């Protein structure tokens, strides 16, 4: 049984309309007739806040339905119909998408509000908000799409917007290159998505290509096809969600304005991959082997990026690697068919990561765009609100009980153990310790000790209210979001898991209480070890280290970028220049030039035929008629 609700279509439409209006306003404004930043800010915040209200309505509507019928959908129109491919522009909400919807719109609203303060004084204020709204609209299409094709529209849309926003400060070439990198790397992943979609369509698309029909027909697929489709889709996910081997774009994406980093990293784009895997859980749960690949990829990504995170000196890069690392956890979760745990981690992560990024933004804002943590220090007194909120965020990220991150991460680790994957569990615990270490390394270096750059320190000041309020709201979220899915052992009801259950094809492994306690204990111990080491080394001031050996290798992120450059980019460029300098001039140019010459010559002939004498035109007509009548009289007999 499905409910139809036209307001579903309105949800993505609102931000898109907002983007159009703001974009047009921006385009039509000039130096003298500029709208005030205030107007833009208010205009920009309308859409996210309204969509958030709609998201609540979706949630409540779903809640009002019986558990097994929690689906509402809306078919806007038939988008295209070619052959048997009949794609409707339709939207679809079930518990999974409604949850995504809630926190996407929630964090996006806060980030929009925060940006009003952060972007103040920017020359192209309007453009920024147009992009931001567009981004949100695309993300909502991705989340609400009723089938892979509509999802793909949003998928590509967020890719485009990330490109626009990462290279937002386009005067600097490096930023543009970072945008390019994000775009190109994402395209590689998208290829996987498209191929996966194509295979899926080829196999069972004929009888409907939306999630509901696909789910109903999934049993018709052979396991090879499922594996293939799942692997290809996962390739897409690694691109969007920055997993091995396609994570390289994400740290570079820090080139964009900080609210953008928060939006991309916390709530929107990077979680798309996890969402997609969860969305296709009806396929992934049929092929546990592929699930293992996903899980191992995820946990290894978590490990590698945690190692990188320990050595970074840019505050945003530390956070960027922590995002990659946390995404690794999520994939470990969804890979092990613990979809609700993965999604729950997405959910809590949205709060604390948005908080951390916005906090970092506030620090950067205070220090006039200084991002190197080795130039900070002692800011605790200057930025009290930022400090306390970021501390909450850091504790949540590091997995300190009872902060939200603890519960969600622990859930994943416990399930790793329960499903009999102690390897993943061990690495997970290790990464938890490392996370605590680098998070607090950052906190200590930024806020504790004594100022390393007195000049910067003296000018530092707390951010305006419009920026601090979102921080506080998010801090509350980061504190308490975990309670929503309190496991049974703490007397909780696992509300989120139960809510999500109808959308997901989940496995529920049985495990003893001892296992659960072991998992929790190990995480807590890892957290304390990590934070202790960090305190020892950085608690009361430390000097800029000189990295040697492994540390230097890790500081340079294992030279993966150089490796990719050597293995992929350079050969590709070499082929390109071979084509440019040899193949094109020597081989293809000749025929191409000949064709254009021929085309031009034929054009000249026809130009000459247009003699301008009306009688000649009549003669053309009569000649044509006469030839045709000749042929016709032949056929008459």
């Amino acid at each position, binding site marked *: 049984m499905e409910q139809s609700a036209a307001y579903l279509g309105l949800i993505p439409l609102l931000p898109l309309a907002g983007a159009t209006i703001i974009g047009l306003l921006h385009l039509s404004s000039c130096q003298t007739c500029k709208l005030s930043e205030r107007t833009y800010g208010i205009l920009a915040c309308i859409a996210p806040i309204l969509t958030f209200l709609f998201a609540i309505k979706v949630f409540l509507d779903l809640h009002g339905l019986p558990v097994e019928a929690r689906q509402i959908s809306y078919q806007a129109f038939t988008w295209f119909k070619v052959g048997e491919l009949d794609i409707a522009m339709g939207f679809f909400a079930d518990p999974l998408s409604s949850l995504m919807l809630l926190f996407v719109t929630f964090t996006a609203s806060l980030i929009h509000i925060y940006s009003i303060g952060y972007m103040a004084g920017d020359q192209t204020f309007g453009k920024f908000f147009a992009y931001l709204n567009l981004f949100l609209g695309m993300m909502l299409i991705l989340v609400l799409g009723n089938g892979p094709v509509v999802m793909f529209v949003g998928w590509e849309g967020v890719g485009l917007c990330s490109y626009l926003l990462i290279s937002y400060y386009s005067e600097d070439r490096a930023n543009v290159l970072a945008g390019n990198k994000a775009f190109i790397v994402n395209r590689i992943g998208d290829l996987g998505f498209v191929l996966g979609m194509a295979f899926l369509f080829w196999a069972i698309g004929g009888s409907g290509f939306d999630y509901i029909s696909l789910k109903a027909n999934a049993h018709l697929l052979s396991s090879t096809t499922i594996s293939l489709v799942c692997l290809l889709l996962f390739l897409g996910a690694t691109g969007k969600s920055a997993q091995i081997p396609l994570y390289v774009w994400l740290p570079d994406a820090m080139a964009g304005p900080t609210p953008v980093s928060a939006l991309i990293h916390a709530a929107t784009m990077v979680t798309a991959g996890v969402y997609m895997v969860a969305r296709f859980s009806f396929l992934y749960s049929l092929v546990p082997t592929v699930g293992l690949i996903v899980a191992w990829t995820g946990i290894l990504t978590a490990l590698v990026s945690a190692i990188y995170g320990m050595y970074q000196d840019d505050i945003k890069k530390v956070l960027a690697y922590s995002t990659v690392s946390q995404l690794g956890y999520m994939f470990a979760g969804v890979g092990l068919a613990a979809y609700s745990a993965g999604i729950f981690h997405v959910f809590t992560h949205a709060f604390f990561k948005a908080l951390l990024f916005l906090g970092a933004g506030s620090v950067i804002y205070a220090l006039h765009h200084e991002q190197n943590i080795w130039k900070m220090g002692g800011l605790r007194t200057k930025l009290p609100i930022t400090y306390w909120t970021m501390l909450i965020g850091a504790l949540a990220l590091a997995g300190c009980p009872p902060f939200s991150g603890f519960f969600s991460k622990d859930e994943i680790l416990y399930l790793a153990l329960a499903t009999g994957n102690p390897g993943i569990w061990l690495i997970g615990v290790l990464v938890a310790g490392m996370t605590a270490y680098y998070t607090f390394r950052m906190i200590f270096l930024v806020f504790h000790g004594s100022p390393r750059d007195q000049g910067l320190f003296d000018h530092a000041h707390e951010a305006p209210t419009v920026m601090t309020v979102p921080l506080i709201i998010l801090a509350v979220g980061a504190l308490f979001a975990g309670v929503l899915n309190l496991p049974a052992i703490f007397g909780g009801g696992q509300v989120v898991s139960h809510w999500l259950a109808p959308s997901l094809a989940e496995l529920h492994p049985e495990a003893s209480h001892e296992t659960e306690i072991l998992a929790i204990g190990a995480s807590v111990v890892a957290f304390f070890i990590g934070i202790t080491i960090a305190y020892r080394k950085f608690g009361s001031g430390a000097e800029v280290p000189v990295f040697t050996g492994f540390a230097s290798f890790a500081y340079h992120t294992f030279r993966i970028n150089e490796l990719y450059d050597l293995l992929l980019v350079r050969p590709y460029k070499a082929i390109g220049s071979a084509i440019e300098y040899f193949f094109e001039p020597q081989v293809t140019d000749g025929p191409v030039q000949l064709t254009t010459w021929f085309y031009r010559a034929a054009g000249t002939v026809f130009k000459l035929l247009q003699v301008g004498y009306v*009688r000649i035109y009549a*003669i053309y007509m*009569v*000649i044509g*008629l*006469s*030839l045709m*009548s*000749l042929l*016709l*009289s032949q056929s*008459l007999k």
Partner: protein
Amino acid sequence: MIAQWLFYGFATLAVLGALGLILFQHPMNGAMCFIVTLISLAGLYALLSASLLFALQLIVYAGAIMSLILFIIMFLNIQATDLPEEKGRWTFLFGGILVIAPIGLFLLKVVKTLPQGETSIIGQDFGGVKKVGMVLFQDWLLPFEIVSILLLVALVGAVVLAGKKEMAS
């Protein structure tokens, strides 16, 4: 029998008139020849028992339209020097005949396949004003009505194109 001879007579006149139209250099001569064709066509209509059309051909075509054309020719006061030289006229004529021949032959082939009938006068009223009028106003009301719009357009158009009204500033 007389009808047959009349047909041949009118046909010859019509063709001669048409030839005159396309061969005479001065449009005045051409127009005069064309009137001959039109009048012989009127005769042919009479032979085909279309008495109303016979009258209309004489009044509307040979009368109104042709006198309009003649009037304009005289109005413009065309001298021999105004006329195009048309040096290659014969080339175009013979080339044209070659080009048109397939069309003509095709049409001849086509009309031969139509059923044949007598041309003797039938019925007292066939082609008369009353009968044709009944057909016109009963079966062909719509075309008749829209012809009025057509004439209106031609009227307005002729005024616009040839009128003396000054252009609006």
